[in-house]
């Protein structure tokens, strides 16, 4: 920001990552990556989903060992055995999902595992409170240390985590998407604290999707792409500009993986029409993402790609249409008729299907056989009037999908969690196809799906669209959005920020619409 960075260019870097790689069976998540961070600077770590950021963070925070390479921290070799060892060495990672214990007080959280004790070995509450107040002051927080963490806003909780990190005498604080759940004002507060820490000589590694923010805050940036180092960017006279960052992040031809599937005929009539859709902010989730007036048309036989960052409202849009979350205002028309699904069961009966984003938590019945996972949404079709399952029909239908989608399984009676991610996802797709839905919403259809199966899933989506199903595809992976969709809309902060035919879209255009502050981002 203003003022010279508090970095002594002659001093050795605080953290040096030298040629670090991480291999998983069949996948190289991180390939020969090097970077360094100096005391008193903010280093931005950027890259698309799957670029290797999370893997690097896991290595630095002690959650996983590196496969090869060397890390030097404060002049010593650094290879933490676990998160606790990393913390003791002086590196603290603050994740998107905060790690405070909500039912305990702020002070108890700060001193978790190391409460100050008196002569009898009992907790010295007074001292703990006093010291907590002092620690909180370092991050400009003036909350009483006695209140439970659950009573704090997300922003305040984050600051408590930072305060705890400082009290542990951390010299490097890694922040993973710290602003994704914050309001504009809270972001500014956080930046103020980051700036203050920088001046105090703390090193900060700032991982973010929000390029504007990175541009404003970072002294230097390291950009990863496909697990490799894409380059370093250095702040000179002015901030590092967003287009330069995007160039570094994207800089590649669309890989073979995302070869554009064959085009379809022009899309048909409007199937689903959404106008002014708003969702409720629940009283107990003051920081949840809400839809703020979404207008959208989805045509029969088209694949509409929804591009947006985590927290843009894309999943909330899917859930609202599917009746999974209550709607505050707005209308939904299906084939011209107003609908108001009050539950997923209603939406299903209307001909809408949803393949949710988190397969494990929201889609599969992990312990149950594939057969039951397949037919759960279509049991009315595979049972008689008395409610008895017609397992012959059910099995025959599953057999067809098994062949058509080449689902690799030993037997329909096998538990679904024994399948690979790709095959699980195919079963979940088959679950909805069995109903022959009018509208199918797929949220992150290839998350956790291996490379080969990704292409298969894409082909399946294209086939479904050519059968006339209207498909809405939400994805964090821009190459996927670009190659599979016919038309693309971008979302940010619960609103649609742009729309274009896929043939005109580029990663740069989409990323600009997804990542820019909304006041600048409303281009349409």
């Amino acid at each position, binding site marked *: 920001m203003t003022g010279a960075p508090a970095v002594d260019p002659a001093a050795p870097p605080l953290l040096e990552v030298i040629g670090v790689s991480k291999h998983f069976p069949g996948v190289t998540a991180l390939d020969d990556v090097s970077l360094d961070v100096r005391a008193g600077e903010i280093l931005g770590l950027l890259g698309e989903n799957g670029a290797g950021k999370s893997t690097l963070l896991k290595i630095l925070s002690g959650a996983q060992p590196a496969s090869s390479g060397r890390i030097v921290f404060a002049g010593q070799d650094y290879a933490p055995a676990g998160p606790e060892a990393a913390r003791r060495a002086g590196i603290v990672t603050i994740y998107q999902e905060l790690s405070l214990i909500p039912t305990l007080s702020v002070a108890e959280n700060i001193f978790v595992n190391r409460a100050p004790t008196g002569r009898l070995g009992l907790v010295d509450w007074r001292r703990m409170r006093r010291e907590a107040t002092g620690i909180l002051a370092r991050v400009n927080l003036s909350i009483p240390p006695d209140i439970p963490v659950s009573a704090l806003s997300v922003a305040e909780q984050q600051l408590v985590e930072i305060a705890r990190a400082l009290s542990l005498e951390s010299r490097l604080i890694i922040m993973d998407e710290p602003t994704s759940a914050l309001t504009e004002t809270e972001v500014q507060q956080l930046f103020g604290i980051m700036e203050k820490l920088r001046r105090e000589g703390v090193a900060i590694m700032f991982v973010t999707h929000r390029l504007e923010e990175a541009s404003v805050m970072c002294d230097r940036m390291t950009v990863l792409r496909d697990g490799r180092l894409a380059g370093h960017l250095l702040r000179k006279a002015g901030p590092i500009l967003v287009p330069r960052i995007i160039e570094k992040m994207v800089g590649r031809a669309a890989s073979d993986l995302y070869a554009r599937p064959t085009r379809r005929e022009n899309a048909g009539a409007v199937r689903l029409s959404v106008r002014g859709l708003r969702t409720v902010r629940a009283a107990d989730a003051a920081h949840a993402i809400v839809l703020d007036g979404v207008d959208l048309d989805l045509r029969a036989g088209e694949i509409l790609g929804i591009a947006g960052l985590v927290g843009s409202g894309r999943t909330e849009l899917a859930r609202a249409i599917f009746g999974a979350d209550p709607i505050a205002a707005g209308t939904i028309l299906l084939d011209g008729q107003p609908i108001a699904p009050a539950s*997923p069961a209603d939406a299903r009966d209307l001909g809408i299907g949803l393949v949710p984003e988190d397969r494990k*938590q929201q889609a*599969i019945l992990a312990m*149950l056989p594939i057969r039951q996972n397949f*037919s759960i949404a279509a049991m009315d079709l595979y049972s008689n009037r008395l409610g*008895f399952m017609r397992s012959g029909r059910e099995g025959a239908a599953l057999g067809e999908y098994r062949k058509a989608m080449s689902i690799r399984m030993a037997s329909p009676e096998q538990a679904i969690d*024994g399948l690979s991610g790709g095959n699980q996802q195919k079963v979940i797709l088959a*679950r909805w196809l069995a109903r022959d839905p009018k509208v199918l919403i797929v949220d992150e259809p290839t998350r956790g799906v291996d490379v080969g199966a990704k292409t298969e899933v894409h082909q399946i989506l294209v086939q479904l669209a050519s059968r006339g199903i209207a498909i809405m595809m939400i994805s964090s992976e821009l190459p996927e959005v670009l190659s599979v969709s016919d038309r693309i809309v971008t979302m940010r902060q619960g609103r649609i920020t742009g729309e274009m035919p896929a043939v005109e879209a580029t990663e740069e255009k989409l990323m600009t619409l997804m990542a820019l502050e909304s006041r600048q981002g409303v281009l349409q």
Partner: protein
Amino acid sequence: MTSPVAQRSLGGVNAFRVLKQFGPLLFLFALMLVFAITNENFLTQLNLFNVARQISITGLIALGMTFVILTAGIDLSVGSLLAFCGMVGAVVAKGGTANTLSLSSNAGAGYGWGAALLAAVVVGTLAGLVQGLIITRLRVPPFVVTLGGLTIFRGLTLTLSGGGPISGFTPGMRWFGTGLVGPVPVPVIIFGLAALLCHVVLRYTRFGRAVYAVGGNAEAARLSGVRVDRVLVSVYMIVGFFAGLAAFVLSARLNSAEAVAGIGYELTVISAVVIGGTSLFGGIGGVGGTVVGATLIGVLVNGLVLNNVSSYTQQVTIGLILIAAVAFDRWLKSRVRG
């Protein structure tokens, strides 16, 4: 990672899988073998039907409890509910609360066993409905709702009966508790038919599939269009129905409805379900296991009694078996995935 297991089971019999499925049953046979050797009276027809008759009451409730536990729920109120349903049934059988203690069965004033049976199961089902609605609408955990129910139904029973029993029913009603069809006691037949019905419902119907789905992953079930709340209310109604049916059979057998009937039954019932392999976390298990679990407890108690083991020691033994059964199940799960 699963391929070695898959290969083994495709190639032949996987010992762990067999153990996992039939573990409780094998344990039951082993136990019966021990008792058959240690006591000559154990393996007599009279004794075995006696055991079967004893387990029918808690067994009936355990069938209903299986549905509840499969959804990852629990019902602690069943013992009290049994007493309450029994008392209501008795009042109906006697034609009012006035003439409660006449053992001389000139009970022409009553409404007959049909009305008594109907009253017992309707009251039980309604109680389940109310508890289920509180659980789903007000989002109170089942443990709390049914813990409340445990004292509420006991209190209602005492209020209704004034604390005493209601005794003396018609021979027609008593047949359901003491009658025989051939050599088989009527309660055993009722339990057997009910178990078969529950098995069919759980295994072969949409509703049964939904019960497993809700217990397996309620959010995924909801997002697949299962009306989760309806399923949950239904399972509490089912266990309530069986508490009512068990109450009727128990009253018929004892020729008396006691205000203190069924105390502690919830624990026996839950033990039977859990020993039978149904997971308290939902989604895994079934009626077959519950029948085995209930039988196991019945045989254990009977065998210990025959061998003159004190009732104090019996309690210790049942507790140990319960823990051992679950520990064994956990251990197997760590060996066999899926």
